């Protein structure tokens, strides 16, 4: 008679004991503690620096990639003949889908200098050089140099586009905008984004990589 309550108490003690050990194990494997200043110093060393990365490839790999690109008039002719094969041969893309990015170059006469862009007449085609809204991933993805799988953090991958666009905004656009006028001849290298299914070749929009005025 007297052993039953003792047994029950023992069982309870064993249950609680197992529970506490399990909790302690989970807790021990759940968190780690370190001084905040030490952590911040570590972060500074490990955080991906997109600007430094872009600076590193700008004059070598990226410049080389953009020198080796399609003439925009030839590209348009190629689209008019066979859209699919032109996409296959010339475009870069992150994955499956209808969007493709192309590196292009060309030379044309400035037909209008607008607030947000400069219009060029290149042969029979009208091209829009973006000078205000330098956004998106066209420069990065058209280059074909940066692969998403190389980056564990997609935010790092996206920051490369931001750094490239920043550099264009700061180094390429201001000097071009201050000098360009109607009638100038302009050489350009840059990137365009096209949708295979909704292909629109009227006034292609180029995100510039280099711009050169030869009056």
């Amino acid at each position: 008679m007297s052993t039953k309550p003792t047994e029950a108490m023992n069982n309870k003690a064993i249950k609680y004991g197992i529970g506490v050990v399990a909790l302690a194990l989970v807790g021990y494997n759940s968190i780690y503690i370190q001084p905040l200043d030490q952590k911040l110093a570590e972060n500074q060393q490990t955080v991906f620096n997109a600007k430094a990365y872009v600076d590193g490839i700008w004059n070598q790999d990226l410049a080389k990639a953009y020198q080796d690109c399609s003439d925009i008039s030839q590209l348009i002719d190629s689209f008019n003949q066979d859209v699919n094969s032109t996409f296959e041969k010339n475009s870069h893309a992150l994955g499956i889908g209808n969007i493709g990015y192309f590196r292009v170059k060309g030379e044309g006469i400035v037909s209008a200098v607008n607030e947000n862009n400069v219009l060029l007449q290149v042969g029979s085609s009208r091209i829009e050089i973006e000078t205000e809204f330098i956004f998106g991933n066209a420069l990065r993805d058209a280059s074909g140099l940066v692969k998403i799988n190389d980056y564990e953090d997609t935010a790092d991958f996206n920051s490369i586009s931001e750094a490239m666009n920043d550099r264009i905004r700061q180094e390429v656009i201001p000097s071009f905008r201050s000098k360009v006028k109607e009638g100038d001849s302009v050489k350009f290298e840059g990137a365009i984004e096209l949708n295979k299914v909704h292909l629109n070749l009227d006034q292609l929009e180029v995100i510039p990589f280099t711009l050169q005025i030869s009056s």
Partner: protein
Amino acid sequence: MISLKKNFNIAQFQSLIALFVLCLALALLTDNFMSTDNFWNVMRQISVNVCISVGMTLVVLTAGIDLSVGSILAFCGAVTAGLLKNGLSIPSLNLFIGFTVLGAIVAGFLIGGGLGFVNGYAVTKFKVPPFVATLAMLTMARGFTMLWTKGHPITGLGGSFGFLGTGWFLGIPMPVWISGLVVITAVILTSKTRFGRYIYAIGGNENASRLSGIPINKVKIWVYSIAGLLAAVGGVLVTARLDSAQPNAGISYELDAIAAVVIGGTSLSGGRGTIWGTVLGAIIIGVLNNGLILMNVSPFWQQVIKGMVILLAVIIDKSNQKSE
């Protein structure tokens, strides 16, 4: 003949028959529906809904409802992602608390269970109708999510965490393993334990249950806590699958969960229904979504069709109750 009629009640198999007919129709109408890839794709997609629907089933069995599961899912996913990525900094103590994958997940689960507990407490202690209490939690948890994430996604959570959402184990996707574990645990809980019998009893007749000595408030608080915990499981799965916690994740997930519960034959007035029925309901919704996409049906029409299926399920359920 009488005993055959007694033993074979077609109403018990309605969901299964509906699923079979749906699969047959989609196999005939589309090219890719019966492929292995598509099968696992559907299973992965429904895993999250299965988790939150199981929690919803427990709540509905007690004649309640939980509208907050979508927002709790988003908040717990965001908390898990935030702790894993950034840890907790306490500048005044010069202290940094880092979280391992296990730690971040446990924290997310605790938050989910905690918010569910608040729902249960409001429903039982303050007698707030479940619809109102969980509606309030829906907006609060969404607000907490926005505050925690500052409106931006939290990305880059690492491969070992992502494995939970995108990995495979023994040829089966991890989300399917996890949702399977949730289902089996819930089936045992509802059919083999005293707690499960209490849930059915409370939903069947709350007054009679009270008079029988069932601790109604305690059971209900547990039920809402479990629903919150399972919403957190869903949040971890969504976040791991996307490698990102989105502030607007889980919007209207509660409706899909309620739909799965209703299609699965659980009575909204409580006391009647099964976890397996809910799983079938979730599969029907997942297959329906998948089939409509494969058939290139406009997303606007998809909403209409889903609504009609839910309405039809409730009408059939009501007519079954009458005939019983």
